[in-house]
């Protein structure tokens, strides 16, 4: 706890320094203050061959209250910085939604009132900006999101002072992955490997089948787009606990995108890839070829949308999908224009996914 307190103090110090710089600009140098922030997004994301992940580029944006558009943005960043400082001073923690409420206000006078935040998205962006300005990830300043990642299997966590055993004998439930990751410590891992699936519904089906016990595996899901806690947990299990990680997602460009979040990272979080990405994770399925290899009946296949196809065309050009296997898979998709969800295996019976498809895939890749 003492270590955490020290880090909090450092963060507070960093925020105060930013404020002081602004005061210096305004009071003594008489110039428009400016916040230099690393640019986030696709145009400042670069693929690092060496790290095998998406990393942040060198572009920065200057947020200065010098144009109509940037006046609110600048104010939002400063107000959010102050709110984070307050949160740390009070030794409290908050969700990103909590921060939105804490800083909610209106601007303008009677007759022309506007909301300070147009939506929570704007406040989330401001939190991100504080992370970039301070170089401290938000988990470290106690701002978290609502947990949505889930974990099941022979792993022991300590959250604060409480021990949580995720090896739930009943097969009836999974554990939410806490988002206040700074307070979470992995005590022991008895599993042989980690299997990440795209959706919680699929995870529930697999857990219920007794897969965990049979193969001594940890099951995890980010319930769609994974949050940072889930990604960090996967990375720690792979790199600290040396457990192989496999990922299964739906056979569509969207699902593949989610699987790749674990393996190579994402454009919106590329500044934090070093803490979030697991380059050694293996994306094993569901392959587009599996639709045909496992005879998914036509009725369970879905027609690809225009958006899907465009995305696939884009993906095909990406450096990280240059190897022959992926190129073949994407070509197949573009040719047949069909996609498929993991749930489609239920058409072959409720146990087919957990007892036939997954073990076969794991055996093929040498995990089992």
């Amino acid at each position, binding site marked *: 706890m003492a270590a955490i307190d020290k880090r909090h103090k450092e963060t507070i110090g960093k925020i105060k320094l930013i404020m*002081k710089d602004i005061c210096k600009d*305004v009071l003594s140098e008489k110039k*428009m203050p400016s916040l230099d922030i690393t640019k986030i997004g696709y145009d400042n994301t670069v693929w690092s061959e060496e790290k095998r992940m998406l990393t942040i580029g060198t572009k920065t944006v200057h947020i200065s209250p010098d144009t109509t558009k940037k*006046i609110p943005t600048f104010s939002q960043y400063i*107000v959010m910085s*102050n709110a984070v400082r307050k949160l740390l001073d009070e030794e409290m923690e908050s969700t990103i939604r909590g921060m939105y409420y804490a800083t909610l206000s209106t*601007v303008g006078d009677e007759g*022309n009132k506007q909301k300070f935040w147009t939506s929570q998205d704007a406040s989330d962006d401001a939190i991100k900006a504080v992370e970039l300005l301070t170089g401290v990830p938000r988990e470290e300043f106690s701002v978290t999101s609502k947990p949505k990642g889930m974990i099941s299997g022979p792993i022991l966590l300590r959250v604060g002072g409480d021990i949580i055993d995720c090896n739930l004998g009943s097969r009836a439930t999974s554990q939410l992955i806490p988002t206040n990751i700074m307070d979470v410590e992995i005590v022991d891992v008895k599993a042989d490997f980690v299997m990440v699936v795209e959706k919680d519904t699929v995870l529930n089906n697999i857990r219920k089948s007794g897969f965990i016990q049979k193969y001594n595996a940890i099951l995890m899901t980010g319930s769609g787009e994974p949050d940072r806690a889930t990604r960090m947990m996967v990375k720690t299990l792979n790199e600290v606990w040396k457990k192989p990680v496999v990922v299964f997602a739906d056979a569509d460009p969207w699902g593949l995108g989610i699987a790749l979040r674990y393996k190579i990272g994402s454009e919106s979080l590329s500044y934090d890839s070093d803490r979030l990405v697991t380059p050694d994770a293996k994306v094993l399925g569901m392959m587009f070829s599996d639709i045909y290899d496992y005879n998914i009946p036509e009725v369970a296949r879905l027609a690809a949308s225009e958006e899907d196809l465009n995305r696939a065309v884009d993906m095909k050009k990406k450096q990280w999908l240059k190897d022959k296997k992926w190129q073949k898979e994407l070509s197949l998709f573009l040719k047949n224009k069909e996609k498929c969800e993991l749930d489609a295996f239920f058409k072959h019976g409720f146990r087919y996914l957990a007892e036939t498809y997954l073990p076969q895939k794991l055996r093929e890749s040498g995990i089992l």
Partner: protein
Amino acid sequence: MKSKNVIEIASSRIAQEGSSSVVQTKSKTKINFSRKAESEFFVDNSALAGFTGERILYMAIRELIENSLDSCETDRILPKIAVSLKLIDPLNDLWSISCEDNGIGIRSDKVSIAVCSFLTSGKYVEQQQRGLFGVGLKMIAAFSTKDTDHPLRVWSKSTEEASEYYFELRTDIGTNKPIVLTRRDVKPKESILRGNSGFRIEAVLRGRLSPITKNKIYDYISQTSIVNPYAVISFFTDDGKITFDRRTTIMPEPAKEVLPHPADMDLKTLKKAIGNYALQKTTIQGILCNSFQKLSSDKAREIIRNAGIEVKQADKYSEHELIKIVNICRQTKFQSPNVDHLSPIGERIFTVGMNTERAIFTRKDGIISDDHSQPRISTKEMKPTLTGYSSRACIINNRPTIVECGLAYGGNLSYFKLYRFANKIPLLYDEGSDVAREVISEVELNKMGVSKKQVKEQFTGLDSRSDRAIDLLPIHIFFHICSTKIPYKTAGKESIASEGELKKYMKACLSDLYRKVSKQIRREMHLKDAENRLKLYKYYIPLIVNAISESIDISAEDLTNSFLTLVDKHVKREATNPRTSNTKVENPKAPKQNHHVQGPHKDSRTKETSLVAKSSKSLKLKHVRSTQEKIENFMASEELD
């Protein structure tokens, strides 16, 4: 009256015999062809002249003002017009309407027919005029006679006679003849008309005035004043008095009568031309070149040769021969008609008009008080920050036409408004079907150098009522079409049709104008942006300062003052030097060159929006400076820690 009786007898006979067999009726009924007096015809078909139900009072005001302006302009008299509209008998909807001008007046021997007899008018010539049918005054007289027992009271002092006459008149609707109840010379000391000449009419009309029509009357008067800034127009109502003063003494060149263009010739025009020369023994060649423009003697000979008719005295030709001339003329190419006989408003006058636009506002207090000392109407000056003008001459339907287009921007204008004028008359109804509306939506805004996106970003305020970018701009666009024959869409003369190439020329005119004002508009938008930005700073700086002063130990007041001074300077610099606004100007010396290139207008505006009032600024600056050291010390000490 006789003719009417015949019709009545005829119809009653039909009624009597209605029961007998159809065949019988047919064989026995005789249709009586009767003649109707012009006055009766117009009263029965009042819609032809626009006098319908709700619009009677509006039309009456309109016709009287138009007559007055025409009367002044023919002799280049600076118009001074006083109009009044007052309710005298609410129970019977009786209104007293009057109009007085300082125009050329009407000769005493013509007054009665000019006021009462339909189709007797000085307007039946090929000349640009406000009124066209010359029936306005007659309609008022006929309606007054029809609906009330009040006579029309008329005072006239014509330029020819220079003495004032007083008349009390009514119209004999059945015969289209005036009934003169009183006619007397007005002694100089009892004179009502102050100027050297003039005309005053008072009539009582029955009519209703809905709030909508009332506003149309106000619009009519304020818009008339825009294109006639050289006129004094006063309007007296039960809601109060409004006066539009004279803002210029320049008057447009009066319109001249013009010979018809031969391409537009028909049998009627040709026969009329021949008739005009009936007493002189002239050849057809002479008549052609004297009666039509752009027709030289040679050209006339050529036409006659092409028509293949023998040469004889002009009045000896048969219609069969004459139509050959008409046909040849329609096939021959002539020079474009002259435009110099038209009377456009002109750039100078138009600009004065646009710059001094005033809108009439009605106070909305719900409670109708009898207290007439408090006027319920007032005017507001629009004071646009910039205006522009462009014009084009063109030929529409063989008639020379001048398109004038004006634009006013900024100031008190709040949103887009289209003004349409035809021969200096405001058109107020049917805007949606007017060609001007199409022109506006078809000319791209980016000709003005501003993008739709920009407009939407800057002007989408609380009351964004429209998706169309132009509707969001604080802009007034004016179109004036003048011609000897305006291509009206309907008999009501309220909207202009997209006849011939009119639309093309209007579009060209508007595009010219957009380009012309482009630079200024962009500048205005920058200023507006600066204004918006200062507002934003006012809202946001307290938030910023509050956040900072909560986090670190610093005087909120000092920081606020410094910040305000800083942004004020920043915005001013950008407003005067918009080009560099997007690129970072770190060097404060650079933009100073442009600092003084500010019109007096702009200067006052920046002053208005300035957050720190000039007087107190220097004081505050000093204050800031003294605290500055304190702050620097603070910073240094923190760093040591």
